[in-house]
């Protein structure tokens, strides 16, 4: 196998990996707090991240390494349909602008660290808190595994085989996250994003010039889909509704995830978030251009074993070894940032909404930070074991369900910002209906994200996550109307108790 390794590519890769590792450990001293033995410091970086750090951090954990691999792969495989990520990552920002500053304000005023904290503070229901928190943890686990898949693809493209490189990379990630908390991915995000920007700019300028321009790229893709008899550079009439509902459902789910929410809570103010809603679409432009690499794969006539290889193979074919090495390090480092933030988000949830509530209510702030550090480690080990022992398809299927699951926490998390009409039992019933009903629907459809609905003989496929959300809200409204308010009076006591404590 050694003959396959390009030494200059490997040298570039090792250089950048060592660089970010050093930065990861140094991060504990960056914008130093009195002590990192507090969850606000370890898990939220002290809630002091201004506009630019938030931009790099949220951009870095929202547009993940797996995106860089998977979106072009999907576009390579089926064409226009794979572009739903573009409208999705545009319409998400007006939503962030409108909703997230309110959530940030509530969190800052009352010391919330997680979505579970918000729900308990608003409704005083431990059951609802547990539902929201555990949904966050189980939706995040496969997402971390996906980052590992992205890293694996990049490492394999370097010619390194076997499991050792990925284990080593993850060990390093786990150790500096443990010691530096959210400061590590925030600092590394600077390097990661600048590298990705360089890679994408090079690709969108150099690749079409080698392949005869964008017209040639699009017509080559069109011809390839024509020959295959599947996909196309425009949407098929049956793909319109799936395209739109996937974009809308994904946008509604995106900032319910613990890692994106962590980025929001860590920012220094409501206006920081609003400014980011204006500035973050710069990454979307990048994503749209990256997606086109899928078509460039057709124009370059690549022969691939797996669709996921389209980006690495394109770089290996069209660029000198050292630049391909740079691109692969950008992708691998691109996996570290989101994986770290995801494990921190999941660890915060476990610590605040499970450990502190059900195991040790008297835990000190230092104890909380310690539990979170260890949990973040275990979460990552779990993802690593899943990748090494289980088939890749398993992580992908779980990730699909994860999107549906996290979407079911939206009513509990967001409705309370606008109205106090909903009560905990209703939201809990809605969550359960959406979670169980949605999962059952995905299962019965053979783990596909779309469900076919028939109206008057016309069949329309809709993103199952949105259907589950509709069921969720319907059940919540119905239960809230039917169950008399006095049965939930003791919940109000909890609210009062929670407020007096904070």
């Amino acid at each position, binding site marked *: 196998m050694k003959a396959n390794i390009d030494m200059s590519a490997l040298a570039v890769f090792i250089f950048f990996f060592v660089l970010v590792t050093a930065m990861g450990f140094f991060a504990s001293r960056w914008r130093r707090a009195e002590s990192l033995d507090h969850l606000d410091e370890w898990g939220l970086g002290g809630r002091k991240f201004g506009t630019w750090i938030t931009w790099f951090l949220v951009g870095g954990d929202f547009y993940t390494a797996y995106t860089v691999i998977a979106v072009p792969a999907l576009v390579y495989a089926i064409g226009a349909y794979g572009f739903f990520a573009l409208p999705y990552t545009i319409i998400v920002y007006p939503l962030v602008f*409108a909703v997230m500053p309110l959530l940030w304000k509530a969190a800052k005023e009352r010391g919330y660290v997680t979505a579970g904290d918000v729900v308990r503070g608003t409704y005083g229901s431990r059951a609802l808190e547990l539902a929201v928190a555990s949904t966050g943890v189980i939706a995040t686990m496969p997402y971390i595994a996906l980052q590992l898949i992205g890293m694996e693809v990049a490492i394999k493209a370097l010619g390194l085989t076997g499991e050792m490189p990925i284990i080593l990379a993850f060990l390093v990630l786990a150790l500096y996250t443990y010691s530096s908390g959210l400061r590590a991915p925030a600092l590394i995000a600077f390097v990661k994003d600048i590298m990705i920007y360089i890679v994408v700019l090079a690709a969108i300028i150099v690749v079409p010039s080698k392949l005869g321009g964008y017209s040639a790229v699009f017509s080559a893709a069109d011809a390839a889909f024509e020959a295959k008899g599947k996909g196309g*550079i*425009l949407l098929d009439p049956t793909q319109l509704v799936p395209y739109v509902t996937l974009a809308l459902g994904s946008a509604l789910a995106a900032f319910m995830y613990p890692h994106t929410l962590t980025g929001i809570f860590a920012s220094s103010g409501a206006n920081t978030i609003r400014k980011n*809603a*204006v500035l973050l*679409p710069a990454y979307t432009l990048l994503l749209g251009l990256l997606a086109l690499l899928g078509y460039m794969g057709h124009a370059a006539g690549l022969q691939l074993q797996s669709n996921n290889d389209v980006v690495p193979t394109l770089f290996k074919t069209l660029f000198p070894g050292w630049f391909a090495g740079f691109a692969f390090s950008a992708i691998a480092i691109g996996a570290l940032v989101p994986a770290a933030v995801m494990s921190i988000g999941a660890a915060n949830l476990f610590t605040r909404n499970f450990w502190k509530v059900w195991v040790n209510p008297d835990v000190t702030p230092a104890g909380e930070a310690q539990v979170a550090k260890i949990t973040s480690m275990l979460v990552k080990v779990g993802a690593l074991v899943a990748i090494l022992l289980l088939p890749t398809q398993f992580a992908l299927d779980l990730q699909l369900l994860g999107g549906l699951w996290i979407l079911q926490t939206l009513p509990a998390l967001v409705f309370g910002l606008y109205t106090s009409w909903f009560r905990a039992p209703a939201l809990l019933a809605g969550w359960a209906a959406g979670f169980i009903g949605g999962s059952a629907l995905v299962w019965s459809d053979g783990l596909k994200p779309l469900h076919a609905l028939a109206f008057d003989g016309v069949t329309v496929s809709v993103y199952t996550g949105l259907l589950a959300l509709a069921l969720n809200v319907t059940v919540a409204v119905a239960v809230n109307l039917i169950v008399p308010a006095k049965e939930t009076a003791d919940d109000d006591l909890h609210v009062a108790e929670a407020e007096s404590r904070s």
Partner: protein
Amino acid sequence: MIRLLLLAPYIGLLWVPFYNFEEPKLFGFPFFYWYQLAWVPLTSLITYFVYRSVRHES
């Protein structure tokens, strides 16, 4: 009221029959692609406009 402008990208992007065409092309990009890419800076501008008008509130 000015916040309602934030709905514009939803209308522009979620009604696919607006843009599921190949012509007119721009720099070799079919309309489907450049139309959606154009919404990226447009959405930024709209959001910035709303930001400027609401920032005094907080």
